């Protein structure tokens, strides 16, 4: 095929890419671009499939069968089962305006430039072979295509072509593309719509090309899958697609884990999935669309590999190039050209995205921090630095591609595509612990991450990179076979005596052991700074406080609005800064004055604006140059937290205290009420005693005087008057007795004659004494006493007094002739319950306790004058209490009062004794 044709097609293809990117960017500038949807997003993630997939998978399958699969299994697992990790990362990136994986890690561990720098260096070292791999595939495929003719492959592959190396031209073209479409915005966290659209387009091209070749091989050369596999089996190739019992599972495992880490940690994947993600929700579609893409693009890998093996049986042929050579030997030049374009698309997409991602990292995390340190670079000059930033990035892109090209020239010839790819994967995998542990464990510290990364990287160099140099002849081969200086223990493929694993598993094991181990141990042992702690919390709890302003709390000093705006303007452009500040003010209804002191929210806003352009670590340093005052220390963060908890504790205690006080006040108030009540009760008592004594005395005196003054009154009248005198005299005596009893009881000076008392006979005697009163009032009395009652220890006369008082009270409050009184005795375990129930008006609810107070007099029947002295129940209570019982009153549900008192008894055993 003519080189001119291939070159023309290549240039046309690249031109098409330029056109697409240009068109979409043009549209994006005018408004919402039509490429902003989950499908384009998913296709852009398919940048994962590089020329390694396009050519290398077939090569690997041709020799090792299904071994190519784990590389796609890992990403599938991550997207299908663990998409939450992506959601978390995307959320964090958007919130903090993260621009790259280096920025992400640096930001998580306290915005430290050193960490970002280390990540950048690892990335550059790890990615350069990968880029060279793409360049190599382009160059190789180009050579094979133009050196074929009429179904014959010419073996002049290493001849210099034309006057200049095509690979270099390709590299330069790609650099130009990346510069034009990847460095359009100064804010690296902004989206590059055109770039993403072009990458998505490339994903379509490479898939269509792969499927076309696959279809041709499977259905053109053979009669479908069955036929192809049957033919392969005839050629003894069935070992490639049979599942062997002695399969190398450790390698499968390693590759799966490696590719799981790679889909997250490869700088270009991180960039395209997280930084360029337009909307978080798009990821939901990608979780199944992306694995589907991987499945489709891999369907024909094994058939093409098998067909290649059959076709080139006995001939030395590069299995990595079956995609091209199969069509060529079948004289399908058009098809070969399509395959070439597919491979070209796979390679270019990777190179472009990787170069852009890397250039941002190199600029923001490597060059800028160094520039800020350099004395000769006076950062305090108020220059506009946007031009400088863009220049650094553009030069970085050129340097990256140049490095890739150099590596391709010197090293890549000795390795297959897959081997280079895996070495690159292993380098990227070193970021996984710092990222994944960092977003789930707040305790992961800067020193931990730094040590882990450094150790992992060193082991990666020692076990994978140096041996590859040895194989390229830059180091003596004895380095691999005998170890450095003949030290067996340090052989790079059997470090510390660990043998029996393949090289990749071996390298991954040691690097991850040291990486994770150091991250964990050093984090536990080292003290976090305030910013680390704040950032750790913000990253881990990103779903918790999305628009919180807590993140800005570590700026303690202040800066004026104009200082801040000027600073931001230098890096993102004066107009853009002014616009952003105006939007900020408008959003919050603020009127920002130039000399006004910026609050924490504005400081945070400015820092994030800067972070989008120059990365979080540099942004923090730059804001620090204008903020007068310093960053809070860890002890201050703790103090703030501590104070808060103390205040909470204190207010809690206050609340408790005031509740206690309220309670005490209420108690005091009650006590006071009670005292007042007692006082008025005493007053009342005296006045009642006076009244109760004077009333009978009045009658006595009146009738006495009447009889003295009127000796002539009739005999009947005289008798009547004398009777009154007698009655009132005894009433007076009774009253005085009661008063004295009560006083003695209350003073504890009562003369009790305690004895074993038979309750039954006492009750009966009391009822007999009441007989006259009962008859007089015509009430029905029912007495219910069990035959056998235990004895109680009591004063018999006083017990009788209680019963008489209760029953006569009951009679007093019953209606005449309709009254019914029930007296009953119940025996409980340790006490007797004696009840007197009536069918009178009952006791008002609030009076149940007061009826037992002295001189409490309930109005009698029909609201008449209270009958009696008001001392009866008070005396009953004194007596019952003295006997060790209780007395209370309740209302019967059917109406009427129920007085009950208890008397403790010694038990039934004593009945029989007393009965005998």
């Amino acid at each position, binding site marked *: 095929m003519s080189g001119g044709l291939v070159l023309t097609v290549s240039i046309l293809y690249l031109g098409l890419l330029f056109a697409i990117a240009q068109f979409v960017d043009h549209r994006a500038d005018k408004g919402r671009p039509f490429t902003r949807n989950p499908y384009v997003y998913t296709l852009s993630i398919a940048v994962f499939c590089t020329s390694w997939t396009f050519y290398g998978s077939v090569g690997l399958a041709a020799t090792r069968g299904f071994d190519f699969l784990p590389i796609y299994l890992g990403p599938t697992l991550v997207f299908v089962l663990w998409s939450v990790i992506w959601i978390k990362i995307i959320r964090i990136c958007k919130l903090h305006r993260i621009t790259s994986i280096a920025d992400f890690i640096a930001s998580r561990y306290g915005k430290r430039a050193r960490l970002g720098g280390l990540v950048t260096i690892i990335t550059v070292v790890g990615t350069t072979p990968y880029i060279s791999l793409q360049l190599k595939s382009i160059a190789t495929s180009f050579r094979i295509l133009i050196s074929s003719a009429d179904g014959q492959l010419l073996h002049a592959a290493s001849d210099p072509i034309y006057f200049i190396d095509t690979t270099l031209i390709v590299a330069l073209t790609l650099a130009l593309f990346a510069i034009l479409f990847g460095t359009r915005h100064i804010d690296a966290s902004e989206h590059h719509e055109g770039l993403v659209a072009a990458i998505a387009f490339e994903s379509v091209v490479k898939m269509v090309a792969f499927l076309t070749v696959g279809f041709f091989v499977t259905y053109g050369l053979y009669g479908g899958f069955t036929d192809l596999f049957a033919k392969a089996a005839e050629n003894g190739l069935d070992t490639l697609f049979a599942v062997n019992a002695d399969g190398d599972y450790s390698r499968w495992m390693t590759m799966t884990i490696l590719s799981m880490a790679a889909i997250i940690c490869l700088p270009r994947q991180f960039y395209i999935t997280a930084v360029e993600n337009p909307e978080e929700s798009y990821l939901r579609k990608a979780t199944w669309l992306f694995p589907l893409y991987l499945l489709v693009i891999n369907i024909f890998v094994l058939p093409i590999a098998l067909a290649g093996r059959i076709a080139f049986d006995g001939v030395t042929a590069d299995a990595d190039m079956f995609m091209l050579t199969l069509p060529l030997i079948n004289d399908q030049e058009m098809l070969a050209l399509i395959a070439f374009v597919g491979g070209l698309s796979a390679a270019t997409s990777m190179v472009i995205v990787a170069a852009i991602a890397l250039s941002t990292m190199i600029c923001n995390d490597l060059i800028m921090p160094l520039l800020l340190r350099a004395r000769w670079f006076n950062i305090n000059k108020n220059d506009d630095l946007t031009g400088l930033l863009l220049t650094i990035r553009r030069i970085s892109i050129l340097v990256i591609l140049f490095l890739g090209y150099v590596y391709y020239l010197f090293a890549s010839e000795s390795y297959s595509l897959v081997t280079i790819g895996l070495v690159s994967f292993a380098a990227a995998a070193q970021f996984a612990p710092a990222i994944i542990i960092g977003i789930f464990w707040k305790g992961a510290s800067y020193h931990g991450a730094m040590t882990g990364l450094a150790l992992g990287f060193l082991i990666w160099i020692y076990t994978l990179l140096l041996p590859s140099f040895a194989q390229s002849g830059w180091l003596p081969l004895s380095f691999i076979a005998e170890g450095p200086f003949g030290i067996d223990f340090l052989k790079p493929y059997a470090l510390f005596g660990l043998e029996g694993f393949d090289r990749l598993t071996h390298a991954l094991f040691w690097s991850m052991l040291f990486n994770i181990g150091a991250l964990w141990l050093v984090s536990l042992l080292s003290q976090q700074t305030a910013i680390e702690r704040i950032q750790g919390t913000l990253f881990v709890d990103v779903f918790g406080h999305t628009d919180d302003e807590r993140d800005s709390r570590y700026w303690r000093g202040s800066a004026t609005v104009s200082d801040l705006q000027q600073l931001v303007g230098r890096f993102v452009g004066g107009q853009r800064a002014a616009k952003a500040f105006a939007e900020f003010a408008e959003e919050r209804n603020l009127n920002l004055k130039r000399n006004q002191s910026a609050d924490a929210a504005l400081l945070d806003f400015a820092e994030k604006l800067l972070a989008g352009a120059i990365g979080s670590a540099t942004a923090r340093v730059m804001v620090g140059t204008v903020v007068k005052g310093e960053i809070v220390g860890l002890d201050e963060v703790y103090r703030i937290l501590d104070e808060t908890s103390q205040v909470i504790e204190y207010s809690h205690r206050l609340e408790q205290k005031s509740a206690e006080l309220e309670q005490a006040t209420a108690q005091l108030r009650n006590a006071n009420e009670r005292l007042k009540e007692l006082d008025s009760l005493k007053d009342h008592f005296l006045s009642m005693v*006076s*009244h109760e004594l*004077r*009333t009978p005395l*009045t009658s*006595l005196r009146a009738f006495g005087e*009447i009889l003295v003054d009127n000796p002539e009154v009739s005999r009947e009248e005289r008798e009547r008057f004398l009777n*009154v005198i007698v009655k009132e005299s005894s009433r007076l005596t009774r009253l005085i007795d009661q008063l004295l009893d009560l006083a003695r009881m209350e003073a504890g000076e009562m003369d009790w004659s305690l004895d074993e008392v038979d309750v039954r006979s006492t009750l009966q005697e009391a009822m007999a004494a009441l007989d006259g009163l009962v008859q007089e009032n015509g009430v029905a009395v029912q007495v219910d006493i069990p035959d056998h009652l235990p004895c109680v220890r009591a004063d018999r006369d006083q017990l009788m007094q209680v019963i008489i008082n209760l029953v006569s009270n009951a009679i007093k409050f019953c209606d005449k002739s309709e009254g019914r009184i029930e007296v009953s005795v119940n025996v409980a375990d340790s006490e007797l319950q004696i009840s007197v129930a009536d069918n009178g008006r009952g006791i008002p609810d609030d009076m149940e306790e007061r009826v037992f107070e002295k001189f409490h007099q309930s109005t009698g029947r029909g609201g008449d*004058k209270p009958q009696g002295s008001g001392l009866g129940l008070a005396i009953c209570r004194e007596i019952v209490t003295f006997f060790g019982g209780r007395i209370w009153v309740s209302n019967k549900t059917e109406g009427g009062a129920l007085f009950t008192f208890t008397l403790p008894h010694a038990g039934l055993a004593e009945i029989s004794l007393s009965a005998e």
Partner: protein
Amino acid sequence: MTPTVLVVEDEPNIVLSLQFILKQAGFTVRVARDGEQALRAIDDYVPDLVLLDIMLPRQNGFSVCEQIRVNPACRNVKIIMLSAKSREADKERALALGADEFVTKPFSTRELGRMVREIISPVKPARSVNPN
């Protein structure tokens, strides 16, 4: 026409003694057992004098006294309050409410009789116009 005395008292024996003394002195005696009965009795027939106990069921003597004093029909009704409570405060209150006299129980029947006669005369020859 003999003056009428309304005795308001809930102790039956005291009522009995007062009835005897007042009848002997030539007054017509009416009796009420509690405050409400007393007010009804006054509505029915305006007495010349009310002997009013303080500790009464339903409405106490103070309240009854107050109402008699606001009743225009009772402008000329005299009131003597009786109390078994010897508190000075009660006496002051009674006089303030418009009682003419305050008597503490137990009282002397002779003194009470004299007091009643002084306040109202059973026969008022000085003021009466002899129709003959």
